[in-house]
């Protein structure tokens, strides 16, 4: 995978995460909502940095889709948390690809963001995994 391909996948993944957090964040309350809003900001900021890396690698960042098809119902808080956990766990693999395709500070950033994503997923109730990945049926 070239750096442009890898960072483009990160941009697309973060766009999906921003959408998911926007929807799910409206379905939780209290401290969970605060965490969802903080996560939303993190995903926006990561999207922005990844987009600049696409540009720096000679590519053009893809636009976000206007909407995404959610994999399941997101009506009650439990479902909302499961969605955010799934998005965060799925991002680990996307950042792992980016780490493999990059070097130095960019790779360090990808590895750090992957770790933060896995931490958020467990915070939302996902089980810990030896190789964190989205596991829709595990919730």
């Amino acid at each position, binding site marked *: 995978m070239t750096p442009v391909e890898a960072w483009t996948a990160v941009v697309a993944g973060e766009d999906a995460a921003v959408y998911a957090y926007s929807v799910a964040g409206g379905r939780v309350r209290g401290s969970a909502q605060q965490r969802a809003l903080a996560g939303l900001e993190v995903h926006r900021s990561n999207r922005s940095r990844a987009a600049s890396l696409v540009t720096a690698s000679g590519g053009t960042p893809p636009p976000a889709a206007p909407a995404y*098809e959610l994999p399941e119902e997101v009506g009650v808080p439990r479902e909302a948390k499961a969605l955010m956990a799934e998005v965060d766990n799925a991002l*680990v693999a996307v950042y792992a690809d980016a780490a493999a395709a990059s070097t130095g500070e960019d790779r360090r950033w990808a*590895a750090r963001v992957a770790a933060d994503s896995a931490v958020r997923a467990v915070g939302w109730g996902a089980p810990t995994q030896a190789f964190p990945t989205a596991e829709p049926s595990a919730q």
Partner: protein
Amino acid sequence: MPQRVVDVESSTIPSHQTRSAAFTRRDGLLALALLGPAGLLAACTGTSEPGPDATTEPSTAPVVEQGVATEEAELIALYDAAIAALADSPPDVVGVLTDLRDQHAAHRDALGGSTAEPTAPSAPGTVAAVIDGLIDAEREASRARIRSCTDADDPELARLLVFVGASEASHVPALRDLRP
């Protein structure tokens, strides 16, 4: 995960070289269009191989890999000592610790295994102290993986270390939940 049109059925996750495990992930999300057309996935395997002519210095990957596998063996020993010290705790505490221990064993094996048989220092007396010791060890392990990942001269080893470091970082909130 939110889906955007295409559903890529599965893609390969870590697996350094072709070693033991080929982990598959199926699911929507990012498998989604993010990874794009199948050709793009196929490209993963080919492009980053250093050619035989590209040798300037021998790769440090085997050394890094062995070092991390040994650190994983040390973490396993730490968990074994903790599990022994907390044997009288509620079963769910021991169950979580056993799961986390087993995940380190999966890390060790994915890194090619280790023959080291480290002995962990005896675990401290209280549950809180045992858990705090494990939290510190996981934090340090995750930071060390990110450092090794950054320095790795083999992209596939770097990819594997991202997963291992992310797993270890995610052990911290799971351990925090066990604190009395």
